[in-house]
């Protein structure tokens, strides 16, 4: 059994036994179900509201869980000095990071599955049935979570949980807005600002490609090409972030 797998299983077990996961799932579930109660307030649009609120809840609570669990992931090991007992076993530091990342992402996928099951049940009963595009949108949310998880693990390696949480959330928001800001700067034709914004646009994850809720609401199908591109992008981007994390972690002294 590889070290990475052993560490991933242990991280998954830790997350599952953590009350944070339960709390996030309970509140996420309530939010998805709550859409049924609030939807009639939008006259004639209640099916649309149920679909939109549910998808928003899955996305928000998934990111919330990554922030709450992920930003503590490596930091807590260093702070509680459990890292001393792990890294004195025959485990390489990159394997440790990869194991922690995979364990956390497995937990994230589990929560996405649970919230999606509740959501799809609600949609099937109260919003006119499940369409394939809904599944695609949920799949894209899971791919987006891959990127956000890798970012959270990176910050957890180099910063305190509070800073990590702020940074991770900022990257998530900026990743969704970066494309709009780039277009805005292009319109204003500000020569000084453009290279700076372009730099951040290249460095930040392009998360707006993963948000297809507008397609769902307007009934426009999500192109298959976008799905494939997003999958490739998520894997490559998170691999690059993990590589940076491994380098930073390998250079650390554990005093």
């Amino acid at each position: 059994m590889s070290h990475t797998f052993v560490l991933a299983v242990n991280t998954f077990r830790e997350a599952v036994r953590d009350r944070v996961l339960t709390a996030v799932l309970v509140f996420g579930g309530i939010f998805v179900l709550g859409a049924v109660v609030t939807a009639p307030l939008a006259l004639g649009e209640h099916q649309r509201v149920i679909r939109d609120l549910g998808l928003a809840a899955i996305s928000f609570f998934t990111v919330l869980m990554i922030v709450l669990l992920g930003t503590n992931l490596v930091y807590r090991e260093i702070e509680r000095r459990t890292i001393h007992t792990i890294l004195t076993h025959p485990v390489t530091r990159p394997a440790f990071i990869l194991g922690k990342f995979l364990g956390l992402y497995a937990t994230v996928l589990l929560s996405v599955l649970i919230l999606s099951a509740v959501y799809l049940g609600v949609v099937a009963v109260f919003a006119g049935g499940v369409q394939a595009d809904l599944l695609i949108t949920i799949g894209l949310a899971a791919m987006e979570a891959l990127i956000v998880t890798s970012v959270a693990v990176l910050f957890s390696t180099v910063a305190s949980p509070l800073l990590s949480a702020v940074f991770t959330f900022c990257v998530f928001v900026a990743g969704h807005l970066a494309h709009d800001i780039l277009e805005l700067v292009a319109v204003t034709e500000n020569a000084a600002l453009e290279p700076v914004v372009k730099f951040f646009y290249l460095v930040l994850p392009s998360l707006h490609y993963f948000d297809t809720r507008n397609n769902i609401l307007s009934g426009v199908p999500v192109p298959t090409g976008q799905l494939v591109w997003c999958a490739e992008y998520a894997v490559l981007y998170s691999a690059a972030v993990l590589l940076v994390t491994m380098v930073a972690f390998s250079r650390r002294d554990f005093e």
Partner: protein
Amino acid sequence: MSSHLIDVRGITKVFRSKLLRRPSTALRGVDLAVGEGEVFGFLGPNGAGKTTTIKILLGLIRPTSGTGEVLGRPFGSVEARRSLGFLPDSPNFYQYLSARELLIFAGRLHGLQGPELHRRIETTLDRVGLAEAARSRQVRTYSRGMLQRTGIAAAILPNPRLVILDEPMNGLDPLGRRDFRDLILSLKREGVTVFLSSHVLADIEQTADRVGILSDGRLVECGALNDILSAGDRRIEICFELAQREALAGVERGLSTLRRGSAGWIGEAVDPDEAGRVVTAILSAGGRLISYQPRRSSLEDFFMKRVERDEAEGRRAAAQRPQSSGPAEQTRKKKRQEVRT
């Protein structure tokens, strides 16, 4: 490649504070060698650099300068860690795991699995004396002693060639300390090399073959325990019985101290020549020689003298230097104050 299991050459470690990057020297050119199968006692006052040395051996921190090997491999190499067990000072484990789960996790990281792993876990937990009822409880409910036992179980589970124990007796009651001493001696009988860092000098004295004393980041003494304790002390303790009390005056002349013990008279001669004359006097007076034993100072006596001497040398050197009270000097002063306290 060195024939020693631990070979440290000129290790220096300078820490820098995070904000102002002020240097603080933890180790100053430490040379150390530990041979296969021996129990090596690593001593030193608080802040002497013992844990820093251990962390360098394990690859948790990197030395500023110097080099060395553990099990013939560079510090922290994965190959070396395959044959190494480690118990940290105040061990912290995943609170949500039980001792059994923790050992399954540790065993799998060492490539163990299946029935062999489970068999070995039960044997190891028996060996360290962790009660059966506690083995499935989460470690968050454990006492300090139980945590130490779990930690040592995790360290010896993979049958390592080298075990590094950092303050293993911390928080143990007398019974627990005795169990730990017995365990260390049984590991030694099995040919396992034990690197034992401890404040409890009596435990080191009872288990170690060789000791190294670290003071202010320098290895000030290193050698076989017997050689260290008997070096410079030529006194001989003689226990005897006399047929007639009047003969005591003739014997007493050659002794620096004399008292009445339960087995007989106990006296101390200043050197072997004087002791020889005393023995002749006892026998010629018709007395009986019960024991004749070269005097050995205790490790505690030796340790205190050695550290005090090192501090005095440090103070003299500091006085000769131009007034410099940099951060490193201030740290040393603080450490000396701690030792005196």
